[in-house]
């Protein structure tokens, strides 16, 4: 059963895995995206994630449902917002299926699609005290419409 959420709270990956596990699932894949201490060669000390929360929950739910469609698997995804330190999880995806191929594919689908179209933005804080918005992806380019 698909599950998706945008949350200001630390991500509970154990709960995420539990939500997709089932007796018939012999493969469980967990992907965790974390805040990195550098970007384009520049030292980073933290990151703020902003989202259009109402839309992001809707879009993430759609992506998770798409990942499940046509595959025998259960998928759940959580994206965090707010101020995050280096090493903290910004996104986590759980995917479980009878055999590994579906779980790996579903997990990959969710992360690639959310990077393409989830209305979330990163404000990077650098060691030198400056901050900047991370250059993003135009969601128009990810659409079949143009």
């Amino acid at each position, binding site marked *: 059963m698909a599950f998706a959420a945008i949350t200001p709270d630390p991500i509970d990956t154990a709960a995420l895995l539990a939500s997709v596990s089932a007796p018939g699932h012999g493969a469980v894949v967990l992907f965790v995206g974390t805040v990195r201490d550098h970007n384009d060669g520049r030292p980073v000390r933290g990151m703020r994630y902003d989202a259009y929360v109402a839309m992001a929950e809707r879009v993430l739910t759609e992506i998770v449902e798409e990942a499940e469609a046509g595959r025998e698997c259960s998928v759940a995804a959580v994206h965090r917002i707010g101020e995050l330190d280096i090493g903290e999880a910004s996104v986590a995806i759980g995917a479980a299926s009878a055999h590994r191929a579906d779980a790996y594919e579903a997990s990959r689908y969710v992360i690639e699609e959310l990077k393409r179209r989830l209305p979330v933005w990163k404000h990077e804080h650098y060691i030198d005290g400056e901050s900047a918005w991370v250059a993003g992806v135009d*969601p*128009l380019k990810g659409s079949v419409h143009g």
Partner: protein
Amino acid sequence: MPTFEPMRIRVLLFALYRDLAGAEQLELELPTGATVQDLLSAVRQLPGLAALPARPALAINHEYAFDYETVLSAADEVALLPPVAGG
């Protein structure tokens, strides 16, 4: 009664666009029947927002709206979305 009464539309801004405008949302007065293209023209007149890209991404009621000829209604929640960077 003529039906050309103006309608008020709320436009939400995020991330870079919020910084450009110095505001989290805009209230625009547009003629009834105005399209996304009309809204963008009005937005570009506002302080800081002349710098919007030629074809910014936009959502109407939480869905991407790719057609700039879409006709708006006063109840719509419109949002201007900078390039996204989740993950």
